């Protein structure tokens, strides 16, 4: 009896929380869908995420080499044909989706976390904290990131999307941090924050209740931009032949096709599938970020 009561109380509570979250998400979505660009961009990215989750279950990847089947033309059984080892290209691309997206989302979460925390700290506290953080940011902005990625990828073993994401985040937080800092500084000077200070509200309250909500949309845009950037970086690293931990990752497929020789039209076609997949994701992410930007700053729309 006690148990069921507890259970029902627990249930209503969780339901309430879900309702609250649901309402928040609903507002976010209605806002996003009011703009055509962000609606299209978001739908495409959502499709990618669904493919990454559901795809491998429907079309599991089979890595048994069967050279008798090499370079088969597209057919019902092999929608994208097969490669030089007789492997199904369609299943490779599907299986690679989750690998690529994992890197992208991990990087985005890590960079956003680091960039936002340090950006707010730098902008809000100011003084020597600001100077120290900005100096560090400057280093990461002036050291060419890509060669360092390559050096690190060669020196450390990168075998999972998480290590890859960790590595890419080392550089990708810096730009965001600087941008957040500028936002926080301008917010700090704004009237309503000044009023909060005069009213002697706690710093925590000001940061979490007053500043953070104003940064949210800004962070959302940057999240999408970092998604783009991290896919570029991870595929780029794989194109050099490093960090090929997953043979179905798009970068690895492209690199393998390149190594097989682009004189052969079959290899070119194999390379094009993941390449087009990347391009579509890039365009979708660009549309989403621009659309979000427009809904957030309506005056941009005039341009």
């Amino acid at each position, binding site marked *: 009896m006690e148990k069921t009561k507890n259970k029902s109380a627990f249930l209503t509570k969780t339901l309430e929380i879900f309702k609250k979250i649901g309402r928040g998400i609903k507002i976010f979505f209605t806002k996003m869908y009011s703009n055509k660009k962000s609606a299209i961009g978001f739908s495409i990215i959502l499709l990618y995420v669904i493919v990454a989750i559901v795809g491998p279950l429907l079309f599991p990847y089979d890595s048994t080499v069967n050279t008798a089947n090499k370079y088969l033309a597209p057919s019902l059984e092999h929608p994208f044909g097969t490669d030089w080892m007789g492997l199904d290209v369609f299943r490779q691309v599907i299986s690679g989706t989750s690998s690529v997206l994992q890197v992208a989302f991990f990087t985005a979460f890590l960079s956003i976390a680091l960039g936002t925390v340090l950006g707010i700290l730098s902008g809000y506290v100011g003084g020597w904290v600001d100077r120290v953080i900005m100096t560090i940011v400057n*280093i990461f902005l002036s*050291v*060419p990131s890509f060669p360092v990625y*390559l*050096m690190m990828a060669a*020196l450390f073993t990168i075998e999972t999307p998480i290590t890859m994401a960790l590595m890419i985040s080392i550089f990708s937080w810096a730009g965001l941090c600087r941008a957040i800092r500028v936002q926080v500084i301008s917010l700090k000077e704004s009237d309503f924050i000044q009023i909060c200070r005069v009213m002697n509200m706690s710093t925590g309250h000001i940061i979490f209740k007053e500043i953070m909500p104003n940064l949210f949309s800004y962070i959302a845009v940057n999240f999408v931009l970092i998604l783009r950037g991290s896919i570029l970086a991870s595929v*780029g690293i794989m*194109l050099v032949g490093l960090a090929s931990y997953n043979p179905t990752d798009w970068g690895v497929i492209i690199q393998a096709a390149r190594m097989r020789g682009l004189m052969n039209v079959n290899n070119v076609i194999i*390379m094009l599938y993941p390449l087009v997949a990347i391009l579509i994701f890039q365009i979708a992410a*660009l549309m989403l970020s621009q659309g979000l930007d427009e809904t957030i700053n309506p005056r941009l729309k005039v341009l």
Partner: protein
Amino acid sequence: MEEKTWNEEAKRPSAFKRAGRAVLRFFKKNEYIFSKIGFSLLTLALTTIFLFFLLRQIPGDIVDIYAQQLQYSRGLPYERAYELAVQLLNYNPNENIFAAFFRYVGGLLRGELGESYLQEGVSANLLIEQRLPWTLFISSVALFISFFLGVAIGGYVAQRRNGIANKIASGYIAVTGAIPDYLMALLMVTLFAYQLKIFPSQNNFDIFTVTPGFNIDFILNVLYHAALPILSSAIIQTGYWIMQMRGSCIGILGSDYIFSARARGLSERTIRKKYMNKNALLPLVASFGVAFGGLFGGSVLLESIFNYPGIGLEITARITSKDYVVVQGLVFFSAAMIIIVNLIVDLIYPLIDPRVKRG
């Protein structure tokens, strides 16, 4: 100045103090310059530390590998070879971390960026000397072409925002903004070099048919080999510069001084040249400088896709062959160049924009 101070000090005891104050005033007066220089030096120093720690992650005893190589090639006893290796690599695994760091910095200060421990006689300096001209050639030509095209087109469409040209420009910006330059390069090299075979797929010139020097055959051959890399990089970058220039111009066109210039009866040509372009270009000149600084590291993927022997290709090749000390030297060089060029941009900017106060 130093001497004068000393002379005065001999005459009057307070002269030293006054000279100190004068020096202080000199620093205060040029605060902008000194703070910029100081900040750049600090960034450079921290970059060095960062690379030093990365270097220490190299697996295996690189000094030992190099010493063995020297032992064979020069016929030295192992101890002598080891000493020589330490000296050449600026690195001694037996030292503590601070001594190692100072040895490393000492090498950089002497201008020795990094010796290869795999190939005797090869160093980062040598590679920079050989490869930098090629890297700068393709990347700066691409940058200049795209910058001037972008500025011209961006300025044009900003004034005709309802025209068809602006729609086309917007589409171009969107497409080129979504395609990364190296995928563009990959598509170009596949189509024009591997499939259609109209353009070469590797090298900076054909060593068998032309002789380097100032002759027309050589120049044409170099341009023929550089065409695809320049084109693919310029196509992507142009979109970026159009976007920057258009945005900058639209901001300027809405400003009060454009309205007042029109009210003063100035011709549209004057307004465009002296009012819009001059003001809109200022921030772009700064970004151009920053972009130029980035050229010194070479475009790693672009060069490796076209097999174009620049610094970028060298970095990928040396990473694959695990020649990390050289890679580190090349990375340090490009980081240093970015920092230096940024500093130069910061120092020059007040001269072109009267609003930024200098000193």
